[in-house]
């Protein structure tokens, strides 16, 4: 089984590279052959990654989100899969080079630098937490795509402003479509983020009843990561309401999407680094020990490093 896992760790970055190469070929040449193969190659890769993820989850008896690098690997899969849904809905393939390029980068980093996660959180085996984590993943995937499409919008807009009618002009879809993709991704991501936050809260209260009073005291809804996520949620909601009800369009909307995402990345990075909250822990216990398997939960000790 370890051999199979190792094979996936080599195969998957290569598959993502092939997907990216195919979309680059399409973008650079607009070759009909590229048009025919890109989606198929991406679909095969998504399938392979799904198989690998399920296999890994079975092996580890937990979600493979035990470290930021594991999370990055799953984010690559979610990005590629979500991109394929958008591509199918809007029949636009020429933006794939950017999304698949980022997905490849994430997958490569994840595969190249991941080391076995020792003492991963037992919560990763808890279905309540797993649901929360999966929704977080999907929400951030959608917001990442919104960011990428907003970047493309701003780049194309700049090219048009400076009357550069080169490759980007010929290949990229209209500003209108790029904006719809960016806003559409937020429209998808925002409800997912809301569900993720709600599930997280519910799970936290449920968990508080099952752990020691000392540990329960640490489970606070005023956790910096939770607070920051609610602020981000509200900021995106205001932007979306402005778009829907006040007619915010174009440059303004897309700058907001870019700024919003940069704020997400920076705030999460800072919180992850400076605030060791219950979102950042490592269990000093047997890795496979879980809250679900034991009547008395294993005492948890907050440390720096690891975490989701």
């Amino acid at each position, binding site marked *: 089984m370890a051999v199979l896992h190792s094979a996936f760790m080599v195969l998957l970055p290569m598959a993502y590279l092939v997907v990216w190469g195919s979309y680059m070929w399409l973008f650079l040449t607009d070759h009909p052959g590229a048009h025919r193969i890109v989606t198929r190659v991406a679909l095969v890769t998504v399938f392979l990654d799904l198989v690998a993820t399920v296999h890994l989850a079975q092996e580890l008896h937990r979600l493979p989100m035990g470290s930021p690098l594991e999370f990055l690997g799953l984010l690559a899969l979610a990005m590629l899969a979500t991109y394929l849904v958008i591509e199918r809905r809007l029949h636009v393939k020429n933006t794939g080079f950017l999304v698949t390029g980022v997905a490849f980068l994430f997958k490569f980093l994840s595969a190249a630098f991941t080391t076995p996660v020792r003492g991963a959180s037992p919560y990763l085996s808890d279905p309540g937490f797993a649901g929360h984590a999966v929704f977080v993943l999907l929400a951030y995937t959608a917001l990442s795509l919104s960011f990428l499409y907003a970047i493309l919008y701003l780049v194309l807009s700049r090219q048009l402003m400076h009357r550069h009618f*080169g490759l980007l002009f010929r290949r990229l879809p209209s500003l209108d479509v790029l904006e*719809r993709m960016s806003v559409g991704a937020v429209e998808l991501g925002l409800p997912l983020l809301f569900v993720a936050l709600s599930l997280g809260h519910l799970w936290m209260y449920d968990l508080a009843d099952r752990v020691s009073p000392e540990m329960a005291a640490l489970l606070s809804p005023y956790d910096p990561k939770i607070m920051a996520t609610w602020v981000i949620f509200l900021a995106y909601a205001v932007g979306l309401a402005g778009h829907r009800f006040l007619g915010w369009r174009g440059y303004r909307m897309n700058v907001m999407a870019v700024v919003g995402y940069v704020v997400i990345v920076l705030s999460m990075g800072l919180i992850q680094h400076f605030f060791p909250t219950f979102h950042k822990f490592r269990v000093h216990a047997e890795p496979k020990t879980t809250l679900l398997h034991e009547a008395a939960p294993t005492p948890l000790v907050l440390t720096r490093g690891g975490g989701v």
Partner: protein
Amino acid sequence: MTQLSTLHVRSINHRVAPTAVREQAHIEPEQAVALMNALVGGPEQEAAVRGCLSVIPVSTCNRTEIYLEILEGHDPDAVMGAGLAAVGLDADLYHSEYALRLNGLEAIEHLYKVSSGLESMMLGEPQIAGQLKTAYRLAREHQEPGPGLLRAFQGAFRAGKRVRTETRIATGAVSVAFAAVELARKFFDHLCDQNAVLVGAGETGGLAARHFLQHNIGQLTVVNRSYDRAQTLAQTLMAEKKAGLGRSAREGAAELQALPELEEGCGQIAARPWEELIPALAAADVILTTTGATEPIILPAMVEEAISGRKGKPLFMLDIAVPRDIHPDVHQIAGVFVFGLDDLDEIIQGNLSAREHQIPRAEEIIREELVEFQQWLNDVDLRPTVAEFRAYLEELKDKQVGFVRKKQNDEVAAAVDRSLQQFIKKVVGRSVSTLKAAESREQRERDLATLHRIFGIGDQD
């Protein structure tokens, strides 16, 4: 034995002949029919024009070409010259320096290139395929094309289709009006949701407006210093729309051939007086200016006022007037994108360059199709004999199966039928292989004659 034929084309096109000569060579459909009747009209035709198996004249604004299938041993120029003279067309043109004369596979290659748009003045333009099909249909209505021309045209249509679908040779705007629409589409995916304002009611403005209407612009407002002219243009455009703008524009501007008809609810047309220019601009997503004014008429202050309520939505402005109608400083306003004729020209040149990069792949496709045609041509003399031989064997088989059916049940007869069918397939297959493997044409003719003699098939004359 089958009479062998040869294929030829005589072409007067934009590459070898000036416009005046091309106009002189132009053949109207009635003249094309007369020419076909003169050349392949049957036994009553004059001796001078005998020898022509079939003819397909193709005449467009950039080329007049006559494709001929002539029985071997006849002079194509003499045959065609006599036919042209018989219907009162100028035969001398085709003997002049302005005519391209190609024979055999070169003629077919030329036809394939024409069909693919490689020989067109505007590289990759798709109308030529339709024009070739029209000529082909007309020819089929008045004659039974010879096997060579039939196969060549079918191959040309296939090659053209492959070139257009397997390369990007037909993509990207290559005319000013179409480039304007292409540019607008970089801003707005669905023009039906957008409002356009046409400032100026002249001929250029009308043409630009027609193209935007063809592409389903939502609402078009014509604003002009003379309100009467604005109203007249709006009414004309409305009348054209009702009469089927799609059809009229396709006839006039061939580049629009592949466009859909107007969508329901799109293409509303109105006129507004000059005093309402700023409100009209405020409601617009696309602004086209084409006036004859000597000074800029769209000033930065006007545009700033007009875009105040746009909330970030981009405003597309196209100035195709000379001198310019839009003040250069308008370009500095955030969210406003101003383009001119130079920009459209740059887009066209870029698209033409991109099309030129597709030529090697297009030529590769044509070579593949020519190889197939060559293979067909190599075996063309075998086909009648092989068909007769197969028919002879089928006849024998049917007799044998009938005999078995009388003696045995249907199941046995069906089994015998299947078995003999396989037998025929193998015998014919082996015979064709042997005939194809002949070392020379004479050897092949001897082999064919032997087949005829042994089995007593076909015309022994």
